[in-house]
């Protein structure tokens, strides 16, 4: 397919293609630069100052001090460790549940369309509100989780050992459907003749799964994993609402507290930059896989 070279087609009538292209693209780019890039440049400056947004005192240039303090702070490292653990738990859980559901659904089932849509419902809901109603479910005295599991008055969210798992479980509940959705697409794209050939060769179900199904679904599953890794790293909404323990203080929660409750604006800008570098790195990998999937 050939692409129109804008200037060679400088049309006789109406606006030229070049003008239209610029008119269509430049406002969006400018908008994003003004409201996303410019703030980041601004906070790059505050990252090197001792500015506090709660006082009228002027910001003083402190050089690399914020970064030095952050990297030397054992609490910040703990936030990173907690977040890493959270990412591992949620992504693993989502892949197991999501892929499992997709395997179950990938056959003739009555009302399959309706069931699939209903299963997808959790990922469409507002994470903050989801966090809120899980609070009701987790309640130690009248929550239905304790009732159905027969766990008495077990504390889910106030228990330092359990809290992170409880918050992660909500994430798994919300986002397993996402992995399921992508896995279903991958599974339905596996050519049927491969299974027929495997059957003729009397291949066992394990062989079929590990040699045919998994390798062919892997690229799409990879997209789901990277995307969820990135999102889990940024988790804030439901975790902030459910979090009562220092053991559930994810990076985003710590950052929020530092910036908007402790008003350490300069320090939190520096922290935000450290987080940003990680996110941009994962985004890079993600886009590479997206483009690969597109090319197929």
């Amino acid at each position, binding site marked *: 397919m050939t692409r*129109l070279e*804008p200037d060679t087609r400088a*049309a006789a009538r*109406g*606006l030229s293609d070049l003008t*239209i*292209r610029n008119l269509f*693209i430049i*406002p*969006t*780019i400018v908008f*994003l630069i003004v409201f*996303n*890039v410019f*703030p*980041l440049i601004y*906070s790059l400056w505050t990252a090197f100052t001792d500015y506090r*947004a709660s006082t009228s005192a002027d910001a003083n240039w402190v050089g690399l001090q914020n970064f030095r303090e952050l990297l030397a702070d054992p609490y910040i490292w703990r936030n990173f460790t907690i977040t890493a653990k959270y990412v591992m738990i949620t992504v693993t859980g989502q892949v197991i549940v999501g892929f499992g559901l997709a395997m*179950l659904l*990938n056959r*003739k089932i009555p009302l399959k*369309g309706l069931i*699939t*849509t*209903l*299963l997808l*419902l*959790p990922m469409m809901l*507002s*994470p*903050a*509100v*989801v966090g809120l*109603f899980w*609070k*009701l479910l987790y309640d130690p005295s009248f929550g*239905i989780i304790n009732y159905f599991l027969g766990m008495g008055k077990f504390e889910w969210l106030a228990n330092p050992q359990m809290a992170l798992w409880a918050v992660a479980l909500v994430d798994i509940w919300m986002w397993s459907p*996402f992995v399921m*959705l992508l896995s279903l*697409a991958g599974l339905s794209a596996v050519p049927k003749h491969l*299974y*027929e050939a495997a*059957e003729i060769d009397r291949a066992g179900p394990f062989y079929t799964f590990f040699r045919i199904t998994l390798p062919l679904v892997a690229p*799409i599953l990879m*997209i789901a994993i990277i995307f969820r890794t990135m999102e889990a790293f940024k988790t804030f*909404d439901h975790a902030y*609402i459910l979090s009562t323990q220092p053991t559930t203080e994810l990076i*985003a929660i710590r950052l*929020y507290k530092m*910036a*908007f409750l402790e008003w350490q604006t300069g320090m939190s*800008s520096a922290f935000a930059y450290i*987080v940003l570098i990680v*996110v*941009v790195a*994962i*985004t890079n990998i993600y*886009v590479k896989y*997206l483009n690969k*999937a597109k090319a197929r």
Partner: protein
Amino acid sequence: MAEVKTKGEVIVNRAAIVAVLLALVIMLTPILWITATAFKPRNLATTVPPTVFFEPTLSPFAKLFTKRSQLRAPVDEATYAAAPWWEKLVYDGGEQVVRNKKTGEATSSGFGNRYMNSLIVSIVSTILAVSMGTVTAYGFSRFRVPGEQDWLFFILSTRMLPPIVVAIPMFLMYRAVGLYDTHVGLIILYTAFNLSFAVWIMKGFIDEIPREYEEAALVDGYTRLQAFFRIVLPEALTGIAATAVFCFITAWNEYAFALMMTSRNAQTAPPYIPSQVGSGLSDWTVIASGTFLFLLPVAIFTFLLRNHLLRGMSFGAIRK
């Protein structure tokens, strides 16, 4: 998949159906439970064992929209009979509506305003993001753009920024120019957030429209703009609708920016509803009714959107 043949396969298939139904029940229980709680009388909301069967009441919804106080003694029959239906519901729930001492008017809770704010901010930002996103997607789809891949990556990367990272400097800037706690301020943030998504997904939809349609129109004497509005836009309508629903849901569900950039005037429902959970004394039926009203539009939209979910969730990279 090959037709079911052997006895073993029949059993496996039945077991799979049972497992799917079981998973469905587990996945939907939290949503059903909050829905049920929204229609319960207060004394049945936090019982042990949980109350599953009850006579539904609209009392929590009437409470949700009004400011109330505890009813010390049962209300007398004449007052009850004279009260409007919603006030009766509040009386049924064992509370009374707080009325202005001078005018006698009922005072409303903050929920109605927050819900309205959510609607305004979500709808306006969706319209802006989708219209800008569609023309930009057309630009990228049809014209040669120097450094196209880099620009597209840049556009997508703005979407991946954690809200809090952007919110710190934005808060300072908004405070300086008076956009803190305004609808406009929130609309700008949501538009920026959804714009990158709209560009990516609309580019996929527009790429699928054969360019021969426009070429033919151009030969017929249409200008490029006319061809865009009369040929391309009608063809892309399904895609535009799906994109708009996605953008609406994203803006509607957004919590972090709303929490940090608003306090009262422009606050949306997501930061408001959780702030109503007190320390043990909170009325879960009222919170549940607010949650129910908030989740209902999203549930409806999910059904309308069901065939586009895959595409939307993968930024247009995976299509069926």
